[in-house]
Structures are given as structure tokens and as C-alpha cells.
């Protein structure tokens, strides 16, 4: 998919673990892992809002468009 998720980058910047993020956002660890590894097919606005709130970032910081990516 041409949309690349940079969740791990933002988590590293905020020095936050996956466990901590999942607790604060309120979604399961497996779902967060799906998002982090780029396997997710879609993301709800509510989830995106929560992640942005917890990581104090913009949606654009979490994902970027890279044409030509499989």
C-alpha cells in the first residue's frame, strides 16, 4: 500500500512503548500491532484522534504517501 504508517517513529520520539500506547489509546495490543506493521486496511477517525491526542502529533506525522510502494 502506498500509505506508510510511521507510528514506530512517533513512538520512539515520544519514548512510548506499544503496551503504554495501547493502554492510553484504549485499543488492543494486537490491533495496534496490526497498525504498526502496516497490515491494517483502514483506520477509524476515532482511533486516529486518540493516537494523535496521546502522541501529541498530527495525522500527517503518523502516515505518509509514498507512490510506488507495494
Amino acid at each position, binding site marked *: 500500500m502506498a500509505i506508510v504508517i510511521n507510528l514506530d517513529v512517533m513512538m520512539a520520539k515520544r519514548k512510548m512503548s506499544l503496551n503504554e500506547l495501547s493502554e492510553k489509546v484504549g*485499543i488492543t495490543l494486537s*490491533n*495496534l500491532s*496490526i*497498525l504498526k506493521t502496516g*497490515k*491494517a*486496511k*483502514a*483506520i*477509524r477517525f476515532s*482511533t486516529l484522534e486518540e493516537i494523535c491526542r496521546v502522541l501529541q502529533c498530527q495525522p500527517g506525522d503518523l502516515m505518509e504517501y509514498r507512490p510506488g510502494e507495494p
Partner: protein
Amino acid sequence: MNQQNNKLELTDILYWLFKFGFWLHLIYIIIQTASMFRIAKDGGVEARISGNFYLWSEISDWHQTEVKSKNEKQEIPFLLTHKKTYASYHVKLSQGRNLVMIVNLIVYHAIWLCITLIFLRIFRSLKNGSYFQRQNITRLQLIAAVIFVAPILKQIYNLQFFAFSQENITITDYNLWMRKDIFFLPAWINSEMVFGFFGMLLVLAITEVFRKGIELKTENDLTV
């Protein structure tokens, strides 16, 4: 919530019906195979193929005619039960042919038994709440294939038997024809084959619905 409970109950009923049907089918096959072997041991096999032959006759009641073999070397006592255009055969064949017929019958029933088993597994998966499984697609495709192929196999068997009958027997005053099921189609295509074809299309359509359902479920599972 109530609606969901009702659906589950219906699935339960269908599951138990298919489970009962499976065992009933199995018992039927065992009994029929045993009886076939018993008849074969006596030197012949009873083959009832009704409705596949067309017989010109004015007799309106069930009538039996003993038919003699064309080939004098082969002894084929052939009893023909007929009424107007319908005829059924009771024929004693050689041991080799008996075996072929018995194997054919067992294979034919075994295929349908497998289908009952596949249906049972589909309903078990529905009963357990796992509606959209990849295995269910394969199972439905297998059912579609059998629905289409089984009547063809049966008809091939009928045609072979018909050819054998035409070559080897003579019936005084009667002409033997393949019965035409559907007037605009050739006689070798019977209604079972046509229903099989449309049944296959129907099951394939259901398979596509299942495939789409699995795609949607996967997409839903991967939505965070």
C-alpha cells in the same frame, strides 16, 4: 438479539437434520451394498433403470416380458417391466459386469455421502458461529462440482447400459429408445443433468457471496 437467537436455532436444527441424514445415508449404503453383493453371489445383479428408456407399447398396465439375448453364446435372462412408455430392467449379467456395477454404485453413493459430510461440516461451522471461513468456500465449490458431475456420471452409466442392451438383446414387437426428457435437447441430456447445471450455478453464486463475506470480514478485522 432475539433475531440472532432464532437464526442460531435454525442452524442447530439444520445441523442435526444433516447429522441424522448422514447416518441414515450411511446405513442405506451399507444395506444396499450388502444386498447387491448377496444378489451378485447368486449369479446376477438387479439393475433397475427406470424412465431412461422409451418403449413403444400400447399396454397400460404394468407388464413383464422376458427378453432373449441376441448373442446365443451369452446367456442374459432379461426381464423387462413396462407400462406404456416406462420400462425398468431386471437383468442378470456376468460376474465381471456385476463387480463393475457394484463398484459404480458404491462410488456414486460415496460421492453423495461425502457431500452430506461436507454439508454437515458447513452447518457445524455455522453452529459454532464461524460463518466466514476459507474452508467453506472450498466445500461449496466441491458441492457445486459434484452437483454438476454426478448426473453426468450417472447418465454415462445409463448410456453404457443402454448401448449394451441394444447390442445384446432383442425385444419382440417393441422398439427401445432413449427416453427424451426435454423435447428441445438431445436424448443423452436428461433433466437431472440440466438441474445439475443450474444447481451448480446456484451453489457457485452462493460461493461468491461467501467469498465477498470473507473479504469484508478480513477488511473489518484489519480495521483498527
